[in-house]
């Protein structure tokens, strides 16, 4: 590698100062994809205009035009983001031929910043899953061990960055789908505050939980990409007008005024000792840099999974009603429209998607709404209040991301509910709309990466980046073999 083993900040500056050419950087990305991705299966589509777009960047630089913060940088984008004129499928058969005539706001902002979208990455179908085993395009292999999952739902985005096929990638996180794959693949992944990043053009799974966020190889690369995509979007009614700070510039590793909360429910007796060790190590590092710690309680943690599944699937059951074979996507013909709907959706959707649609439909249905959807929304509010109370005493929470290192492909797929409980450390964060990041914490004894989670109050991503940088400076960086 000449370029992809460096930070995108450095490479971008070299491109802009004409030391190197964007075309060459993008070419390296494409070559690496060509070599490594046949096995990893991170990508489901490539942008055949990538080199052309890189050339255009080089030309603009020659002409002395101003360049965006991601000029010439190859970025991958999860196939949940609509990309104009480039096939977008949500990794589902039902959309396998869909070519959007519009791009997601996030994609437009990346392009305006000069980034080159090299391709669309693999994911669990409609972002529903924690292992990328639910994709219509096959499983994504973890670059650390090809027999293991890369995590989900943003498995492809995580794997692409871990294998250095791109500098950064976009994922979405509804119950942990950025943080968990980041942890299993040993990279940085942040889910911002709900409302921070526009959801326009992102295929919706659960509207009040979905957020887009970047994967990157370091804190500053993550904060730089987030800065590009964050900010008010008039096309998204749930977009916040909160100002976007210059996070990268403002990163401070002064932990002397930081109080870290350690949630006792996240460090129970059944916590995997390796996971615990790595999380405690991170906390010790922060203490050694001057941070105070405090044991806190998030008493409703154990309800987070069922609450999440009720709320998310209810919203999803409605969000996915539009996939009916009428205006786009696949259609199974019939002489009656209701039969056409049922066959198209029955055959076009995968098993996990159908299960979730069924659960959500049930939770909203007449006679069950109060007991299920409404009740879940009330307990959600209680979970939110638990965090608010905790954040009146601490600045951030540090805890595990996952219950284990990457598991073997096929190991958990049969036991759906056990798979759901993988997300126990991440889903509360989505329910409360808080920002959360996974930071590489080191390797377990099996040589596989383990992430550490940092959670902060609404809109306090700076706190997260500060802690992330402190850990980054004090934990040895590891890369997968052969990358």
């Amino acid at each position, binding site marked *: 590698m000449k370029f992809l083993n460096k930070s995108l900040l450095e490479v971008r500056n070299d491109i802009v100062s004409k030391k190197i050419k964007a075309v060459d950087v993008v070419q390296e990305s494409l070559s690496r994809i060509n070599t490594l991705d046949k096995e990893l299966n991170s990508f489901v589509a490539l942008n055949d205009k990538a080199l052309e777009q890189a050339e255009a960047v080089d030309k603009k630089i020659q002409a002395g035009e101003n360049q965006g913060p991601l000029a010439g940088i190859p970025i991958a984008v999860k196939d*949940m*983001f*609509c990309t104009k004129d480039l096939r*977008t499928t*949500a990794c589902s058969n039902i*959309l396998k031929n*869909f070519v*959007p*005539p*519009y791009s*997601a706001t996030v994609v437009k902002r990346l392009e305006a910043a000069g980034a080159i979208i090299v391709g669309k990455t693999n994911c669990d179908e409609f972002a529903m899953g924690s292992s990328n085993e639910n994709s219509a395009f096959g499983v994504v292999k973890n670059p650390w061990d090809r027999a293991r999952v890369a995590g989900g739902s943003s498995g492809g985005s995580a794997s692409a960055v871990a294998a250095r096929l791109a500098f950064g990638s976009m994922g979405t996180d509804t119950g942990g789908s950025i943080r968990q794959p980041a942890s299993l693949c040993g990279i940085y992944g942040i889910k911002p505050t709900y409302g921070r990043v526009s*959801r*326009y*053009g*992102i*295929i*919706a799974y*659960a*509207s*009040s939980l979905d957020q887009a966020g970047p994967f990157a190889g370091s804190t500053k690369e993550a904060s730089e990409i987030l800065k590009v995509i964050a900010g008010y979007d*008039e*096309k*998204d*009614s*749930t977009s916040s007008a909160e100002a976007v700070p210059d996070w990268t510039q403002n990163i401070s590793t002064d932990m002397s005024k930081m109080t870290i909360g350690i949630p006792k429910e996240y460090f129970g007796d059944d916590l995997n000792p390796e996971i615990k060790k790595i999380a405690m190590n991170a906390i010790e590092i922060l203490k050694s840099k001057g941070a105070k710690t405090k044991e806190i309680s998030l008493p409703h943690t154990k309800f987070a999974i069922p609450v999440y599944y009720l709320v998310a699937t*209810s*919203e999803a*059951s*409605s969000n*996915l*009603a*539009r*996939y*009916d074979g*009428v*205006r*786009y996507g696949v259609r199974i013909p019939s*002489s009656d*429209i*209701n039969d056409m*709907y049922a066959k198209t959706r029955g055959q076009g959707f995968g098993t996990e998607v159908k299960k979730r649609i069924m659960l959500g*439909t049930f939770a*909203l*249905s*007449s006679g069950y*709404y109060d007991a299920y*959807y409404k009740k879940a929304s009330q307990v959600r509010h209680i979970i939110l209040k638990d965090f608010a109370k905790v954040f009146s005493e601490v600045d951030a929470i540090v805890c595990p991301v996952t219950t284990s290192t990457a598991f073997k492909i096929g190991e958990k797929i049969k036991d759906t509910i056990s798979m759901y409980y993988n997300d126990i450390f991440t889903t509360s964060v989505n329910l409360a709309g808080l920002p959360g990041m996974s930071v590489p914490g080191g390797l377990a004894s099996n040589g596989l990466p383990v992430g550490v989670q940092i959670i902060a109050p609404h809109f306090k991503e700076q706190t997260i980046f500060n802690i992330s940088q402190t850990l980054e400076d004090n934990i040895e960086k590891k890369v997968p073999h052969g990358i």
Partner: protein
Amino acid sequence: MAYSDYESVIGLEIHAQFLTDTKIFSSSSAKFGGGDNEHVDAVCMGMPGTLPVLNKKAIEFAIKTGLALNCEVKKKSVFSRKNYFYPDLPKGYQISQYDQPVCEKGFLDVTINGQKKRIGITRAHLEEDAGKSTHHGDYSLVNYNRSSVPLLEIVSEPDMRSPQEAAEYARAVRSILRYLGVCDGNLEEGSMRCDCNVSVRKKGEKKFGTRTELKNINSFRFIEKAIQYEIERQIDVIESGQEIVQETRLYDSTKNKTFSMRSKEEAHDYRYFPDPDLLPLIISDKEIDLAKSSLPELPQQRAQRFQTQYGLPEYDSEILTVEKEMADYFESVVKECGNAKSASNWIMTELLRELNNSKKEIADSPVSAKMLAELVQLIDKNTVSGKMAKAVFMEMFKSGKTASEIVKSQGMSQITDENEIGKIVDQVIQANPTQTTEYRSGKDKLFGFFVGQAMKASKGQANPELLNKVLKEKLKG
């Protein structure tokens, strides 16, 4: 048949399409018509990843309409998803308002046969319209131009007790919507839709009977006819010992009957829940005050003012104020000519008749307010006789020429010169010696004959009062 033993209970659900430039949740054009799928964008087509954003103007229109209907405008209301599958519903759900609508608890006073009655309005809420599908045997075609056009659904209390009351209420709502400029109230084109909930019960019974919902009614006349038919149908069913089925029925105007909608056998479970893509609609006191202060004079207020300001009878005032354009026209005429009674007569008889016959709206009247005012002035100045004026008006309507032009060019000026009239009378007396003698010997009835002859000789232009005076004098002998 014991129809008179029963009373009917009627409620109306009116859907009013707002005259905004763009749709309620999408920035594509809300204009009526257009080429196939021309007024669309990704949002109103329900494409993947698209999101709704509320149109400011739709909020303003909803507040204005709510205030005009005497509703309480809610400071916080919530959008909910109504989930069902249909090809003209691109998202598989309609964004509507369910348990927290934007307006509540209003009323409208309507006049039925000279009596005022207050009809309660339960609520009014914002929602989006669906696209349109046309059916062609073994396939259907779908157009999304209408998808997401803003609608205000106005739900009345079941306060109406006759088809006539229902039609009157619907007319009053339409009038208000047009005055506000928020909806053009066109039942035929569907910019205003009226669904009627009808039930019957024995007179004196407190409980409500089972109701049916009538749809596909596209004129005020049909509102009355459809409801009348349904009332009688329901009574027939009950009298025959059967029960009313709660269902939706379509009105067929060619047969004047209502039919059950077979395809609706399964009750819909709409699974309403608050739309997570939208935040609750927050309306400030300031916005409500602004809307209140910008409300135009409403039909009922205007009718009241016509009575006090112009001395018009209640009946005339109500007719003139149904359509804002008509009321504006009237006041323009009065401003120019100062004769309210005359203006109102001309408008209500001649002008309305001719507009109806030529299927024109008052906005397209060939006789402008200024022109009509001039005609009234000519009559008041005696330049033209009242009778002649009718002919002048017809010519004005046909040619678009002004009254004075026509009077001048066709020599229709009234003859007010006593000498000239005298000459005509002399001629008539000379030409009719027998009648003259008879009149002079006491046959008073023949006066009318002389008037007729003189009028004929003067081509109707003789001023009637003057003619009478001169005739009387000259016939004295």
